[in-house]
Structure formats: structure tokens, C-alpha cells
């Protein structure tokens, strides 16, 4: 018995010693691992998965004057389907294949409803034929919003997961949406990436890209036990800064009215290449609408917004420039009244200028040999304005050009969108100056200006001689708060108020008895001027040698303009419409179409904008509908 006890005690001691030694070994190993062992490449496998993710900023919105969204970032999705998924396997198991096809058939109804490119039967037919043909990448739809994606993913087949249905979703998180489609797209601009991922922008998107794009952030993330990633607060993070919003002066309603008015006039007139319309607020110079519509070179191509005529199309303005001459001679005191007369002389000035047929007609009609400046302006006589310039500035033409410079028609001023062309003016010291340059400039040739320059000048006349600097950006905002506010700026008084009033009266005569008399019965009284000019043929259109206004095959291009302001007594808006013709053999009298478009624009503004309607003054204060009902009872 005693021997047994000794044996047990010895065994237990042996186990104790053994465990003790193991303990020592483990302890030593721990110390060694802690201080000497290097995990090397294995280290990542012994630590939780960490990563640094870049957080892309959300690009800012572009808003109109009233806060309506003109451009915003919104992810778009393109859906493909691996129609042949599990097909080789299910071919052997008819039940499984039947189930898959049954779900596909049910889902086709949903595709018809949510995507809608085809009928349900056609969708099903496509899915099955692609399945049998082994198509692993059949496109269901592209550029759809999240809502459509969610609806599609909730369909019976796709609900089962992508590994069963074969749905492949490709997202474009940086996609830009323009809720109003092509409305003001040239002004709003575009942003695109080429194959090398280089961002290309223009318009407001381009000019204000640094405000809109924001700054990317980064944060460290670690993997949890559930293999999901969470933010690792222990590591350094850079805060993402979303882009700022840009509020423009544009008014979507006015833009729509102007866009529609132009489309209605020229949409099916394929001889017209394009058109431009600008609506500017007289008092501030804020651009409320800027329409730029152009067709491709294909004859029946639709009008699209892709070329900014307003800033880029520097052309000879034609008769709308006569207002500049008139303002100049009145401001310099050469004429005191619009009723002053000039000798008609059958419309001939020294043989150097083309004979003005308007004067011949006038002489025949009236039998007079004198014409008033006002009537000359009404009938848009080239003779009258060439004579005015020659008689008054013939000795010192530089004085006339100094006035043109003062009217800001000779330089490209700073504008919120890049690309405003510098006008081309033929000065007396220029190599291109000829004996007729003064006269032709006076009636709108020999000098090239952009529509924006013209509208800015007319706006100054409407504003009593004070020229406002045109602007299109109202403020830069962040989360609805102004970060930077742009106030209206002016270029100063370009002429006296009395000069502006006299010119205004002349412009009013044009719309009531002159070339724009179709505007006589418009909803609001307009004062303005029409103008038609030949357009210089560009090199790619093959101009005729010695005649830059005609193509090799005898076609001409014209531009027709109407520019004016309304209502005459207290102008609120200045509006310009210019249309550009394609090379054609037809004669083109351009003032009519722009004037008709302006009439529609004025009607639209009159009926839809607040402030034009009659004011009704109530006899008793309005107490709310609840009280009225009680009173009736």
C-alpha cells in the first residue's frame, strides 16, 4: 500500500516537473518572440486588415437665379447581364433551368415597366436568345438613376443575387446631370474625361472648376471580425471637402421662353445655321438668359447648344451699329435733334460707297430731297449714317473711334465665362484703313463685335447712359450660405442721360414706324433696332478670291439681329436675338425672324413673370379662407 502511494506521488511530481519545464519553455519562447523574432512578410496576416481609402468630393451644383438646379452630380448606372450564367449546368437539370426561365419571364415585365426600351415579351426573347447563344455581357440599359437600379434589383430574378441572375452593375459615380437638358448648356458648360482621364471643361463648369470640384479626403479603414471595413480612428485622416455651389444670374423660365421662341422660328428653317439670344437686366447687367443654338453641318440636323455664339461669334454687326453712330454724333453735339435733315442726294456719297436704294425709294415716295435723321434711322439708311460720320468725323475720324472705345465696343472686357472675343475695329492708323472705312463702320461694317458687346451697349442706352458690366455669376455658396457674392459693376456713364433718351426715342421710332414695326403691338412697348449683315466666309467654307463674303460657288451667309429693351418708359430687360444663315444663294433679310422671336420672348416674360399684372387693392383686409367661410355662413 505504502509502495503504491510512493508511486503515485512520484508520478505526480514527474508531471509537475514536466509541466513546469513546458511553462519555462513557453515563457522563454514568448520573450524571444517579443524581442527577437521578425515576422517579415507574414506580418500582415497576423494583424487586422487596414487600408487607406480616398474619399472623392461631391462636385458642387450650378444653380439658376432662383436656386433651380442647372447641373448636379448624380451617380448613373449601366446594367449588363451574363445571360449564360449556370446554363451549361442547368441544361442537364431541366427543373433548375425551368425555374430560372420562369423568373426571367416575370422579371421581363418589370424591365418593361422600369427600363421600358422594349416590351416584356421582347425582353424575355432577348434574354433567352442571349442565354442560348452564350452572351455573357448583354446590355440591359445604360445611364439610369439609382431608383431604376433599385427597381430592377428588386425583380424576382435579380433579387436572387448576381451569382444566380448574372446581373452586372457598372456605376459612374462622378456622372453629371443636367435636369433641363440642353437648356443653357453652352453657358453652363460641360465636363468630360478623355481616355487618359484628363478632365476637359468649358462654360461655367470650366471657369469655376476650382470651386465646384472640392478637395478629396482620405481615411484609414480596418477590417472587423465580420470582414467589413470601419473607420480606423487611430490613424490620420484628411477631411473631404465637397465642392461649392455656383449660383448664376440665369432664370430657367426666361431661358426656356427664349429657347422656345427661337426654336419655334428656326427649327424647321434649315437655311438657318443657328441663333443666339441674350436677355440682360437693364439695371444690373445680370444675364437672365443666354441661348446659343447651332446645327451640325448635316443639312437637317437639329439645333443643339454646343457653340457659344454670344461670346465667340465676332462678326460685322450691320445696322444695329447705326445706334452707336447716332449716340456718338448726339453726344459730341453734332446734332441737336432727330428731326434735323440731310440732303438725300439719291443715296450717293462720292461714288465710293454702294448707292442706298432706301433713299431712292424715299425720294420717289415723298418727292423730297431732304431726309430727317430719325426717318433715316427708321428705314435703316446706310447713306444717312455714312454721311453723318463723314460730315462730322471726316476731319478727325479718331474722335469717332475714341467714342467706340468709350462705348466698350473695341475691347474684350472681363466676363465670367472664358472666351469672349476681342472686337476687331479698323482704326485710321491701321493698314486696313481705306477711304470708305469711316462710312462703312458707321453703318456696321469694317468692324467685328460679339453679340455680348452689342447687347451691353444697348443696355446702357436703356439704362440712361450708364453701362453695366454683364455678369452671369451671382454667388458662390456652400450648404446654402454665401461664401462669395458678386455685385453688379458698371463701366461708368458712356453718354449723358439726354443723349440716351434721344437715342431711345429713335429706337422707339424703329419699332413703331420703321424696320421693326411688327413689334408695334407687342405686349410691352419695345425700343430697338434691326440689322442685317453679310458674314465673312470662313476658310474651310472656301471663300471666293477677292470677295470674302461669297463662297466659290456664289453662296452668301448673313446674320440678322434685333436688339432692344422693354418696356420703353422704364426698361427692365434688354434683349438681343441674332440668327446666322448657312451659305445660300437666297437673299436674306434677317431682321424679321429675330424681331418675331423677340416678340414671343416679350410675351412670355409679360405673362409669366410677376410684376406686370394689374394690382387689385382690396377694400377690407384679407382674413384668410377660414374666416371667409365663417362669414359666409
Amino acid at each position, binding site marked *: 500500500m505504502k509502495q503504491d502511494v510512493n508511486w503515485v506521488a512520484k508520478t505526480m511530481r514527474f508531471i509537475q516537473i514536466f509541466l513546469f519545464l513546458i511553462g519555462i519553455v513557453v515563457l522563454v519562447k514568448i520573450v524571444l518572440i517579443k524581442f527577437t523574432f521578425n515576422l517579415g512578410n507574414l506580418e500582415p496576416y497576423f494583424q487586422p486588415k487596414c487600408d487607406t481609402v480616398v474619399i472623392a468630393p461631391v462636385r458642387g451644383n450650378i444653380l439658376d437665379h432662383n436656386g433651380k*438646379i442647372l447641373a448636379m452630380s448624380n451617380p448613373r448606372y449601366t446594367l449588363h447581364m451574363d445571360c449564360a450564367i449556370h446554363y451549361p449546368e442547368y441544361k442537364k437539370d431541366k427543373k433548375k433551368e425551368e425555374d430560372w426561365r420562369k423568373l426571367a419571364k416575370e422579371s421581363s415585365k418589370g424591365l418593361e415597366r422600369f427600363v421600358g426600351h422594349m416590351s416584356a415579351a421582347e425582353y424575355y426573347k432577348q434574354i433567352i436568345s442571349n442565354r442560348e447563344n452564350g452572351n455573357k455581357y448583354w446590355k440591359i440599359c445604360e445611364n439610369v438613376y439609382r431608383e431604376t437600379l433599385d427597381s430592377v434589383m428588386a425583380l424576382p430574378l435579380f433579387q436572387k443575387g448576381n451569382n444566380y441572375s448574372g446581373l452586372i452593375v457598372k456605376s459612374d459615380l462622378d456622372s453629371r446631370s443636367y435636369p433641363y437638358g440642353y437648356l443653357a448648356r453652352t453657358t453652363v458648360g460641360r465636363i468630360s474625361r478623355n481616355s487618359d482621364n484628363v478632365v476637359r471643361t468649358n462654360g461655367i463648369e470650366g471657369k469655376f472648376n476650382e470651386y465646384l470640384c472640392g478637395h478629396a479626403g482620405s481615411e484609414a479603414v480596418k477590417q472587423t471580425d465580420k470582414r467589413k471595413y470601419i473607420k480606423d480612428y487611430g490613424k490620420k485622416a484628411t477631411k473631404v471637402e465637397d465642392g461649392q455651389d455656383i449660383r448664376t444670374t440665369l432664370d430657367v423660365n426666361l431661358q426656356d421662353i427664349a429657347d422656345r421662341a427661337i426654336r419655334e422660328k428656326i427649327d424647321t428653317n434649315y437655311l438657318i445655321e443657328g441663333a443666339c439670344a441674350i436677355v440682360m437686366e437693364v439695371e444690373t447687367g445680370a444675364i437672365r438668359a443666354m441661348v446659343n443654338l447651332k446645327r451640325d453641318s448635316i443639312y437637317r440636323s437639329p439645333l443643339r447648344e454646343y457653340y457659344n455664339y454670344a461670346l465667340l461669334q465676332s462678326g460685322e454687326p450691320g445696322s444695329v451699329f447705326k445706334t452707336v453712330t447716332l449716340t456718338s454724333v448726339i453726344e459730341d453735339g453734332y446734332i441737336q435733334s432727330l428731326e434735323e435733315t440731310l440732303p438725300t442726294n439719291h443715296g450717293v456719297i462720292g461714288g465710293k460707297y454702294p448707292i442706298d436704294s432706301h433713299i431712292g425709294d424715299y425720294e420717289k415716295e415723298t418727292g423730297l430731297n431732304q431726309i430727317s435723321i430719325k426717318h433715316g434711322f427708321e428705314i435703316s439708311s446706310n447713306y444717312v449714317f455714312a454721311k453723318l460720320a463723314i460730315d462730322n468725323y471726316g476731319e478727325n475720324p479718331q474722335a469717332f473711334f475714341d467714342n467706340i472705345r468709350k462705348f466698350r465696343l473695341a475691347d474684350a472686357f472681363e466676363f465670367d465665362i472664358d472666351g469672349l472675343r476681342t472686337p476687331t475695329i479698323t482704326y485710321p492708323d491701321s493698314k486696313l484703313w481705306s477711304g470708305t472705312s469711316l462710312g462703312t463702320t458707321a453703318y456696321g461694317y469694317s468692324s467685328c463685335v460679339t453679340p455680348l458687346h452689342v447687347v451691353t451697349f444697348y443696355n446702357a442706352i436703356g439704362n440712361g447712359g450708364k453701362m453695366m458690366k454683364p455678369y452671369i455669376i451671382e454667388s458662390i455658396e456652400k450648404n446654402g450660405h454665401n461664401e462669395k457674392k458678386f455685385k453688379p459693376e458698371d463701366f461708368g456713364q458712356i453718354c449723358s442721360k439726354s443723349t440716351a433718351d434721344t437715342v431711345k426715342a429713335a429706337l422707339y421710332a424703329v419699332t413703331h414706324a420703321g424696320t421693326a414695326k411688327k413689334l408695334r403691338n407687342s405686349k410691352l412697348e419695345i425700343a430697338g433696332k434691326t440689322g442685317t449683315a453679310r458674314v465673312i466666309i470662313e476658310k474651310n467654307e472656301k471663300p471666293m478670291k477677292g470677295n470674302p463674303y461669297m463662297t466659290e460657288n456664289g453662296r452668301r451667309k448673313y446674320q440678322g439681329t434685333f436688339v432692344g429693351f422693354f418696356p420703353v418708359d422704364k426698361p427692365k430687360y434688354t434683349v438681343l436675338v441674332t440668327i446666322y444663315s448657312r451659305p445660300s444663294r437666297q437673299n436674306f433679310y434677317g431682321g424679321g425672324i429675330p424681331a418675331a422671336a423677340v416678340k414671343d420672348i416679350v410675351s412670355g416674360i409679360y405673362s409669366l413673370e410677376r410684376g*406686370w399684372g394689374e*394690382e387689385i387693392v382690396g377694400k377690407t383686409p384679407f382674413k384668410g379662407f377660414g374666416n371667409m367661410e365663417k362669414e359666409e355662413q
Partner: protein
Amino acid sequence: MEEAKMSIKKTLLTMVRGEWIEVFRIERYFFHIMTVIAVLILTVALNWKMDQEMLTLQQKKTELKMIKIKHAGKTIKCAEIERIGQVKDLLNKMGSKLVVPEEPAKELKK
């Protein structure tokens, strides 16, 4: 020196015999040891809980992002149909006699 050798031998023997805890009277530090263990357990539990909360936060953030995306989509859709031209076309398409007003609205003044 001899005493030190004896002391080490005695200590090792007590360890081998399993009487080490008893000799050093570890039971005096029992509360401290239990506290350390409790703190360790608490730390692990809190870490786990924090991860869970962070995970929920991450999920909510993703949900919020989705809602924002859906909201943006709806805003765009609304903007698309509120355009005057679009309203005109829709009314026309529906055969409605309602047209865009030709006269401005009369304004009530107090």
C-alpha cells in the same frame, strides 16, 4: 552565498511541488488579479462593442448616401418635368385645354 543557494533551491522545489502560490501567499493579491482580469475582459468587450457601433455607423452612412443619391435622382426628375416647355408639351399630349397664361397674374394688394 550558501543561504542564497538554499533559498533558490527551496523556491524551485516549492515550484516543482506546486506549493509556490501557497508559499508566496498570492491569495493576498486575489482581488487585484481579478480586477486586472475584469478590466481586460471589459476592454475586449468594449472594443468589440465599439466595432459593432462603428459598423452600424458605416452602414447608416452608406444608407444615407443612397438616400442622397435617390433624392438627387428625384430632384432631377422633378426639374425635368417642371420646365414650362415640358409642362406645355405634357398638357398638349394629354389633350388638356389648359395653356400657359397669356396675361400676367393680377396681384392682390392689402
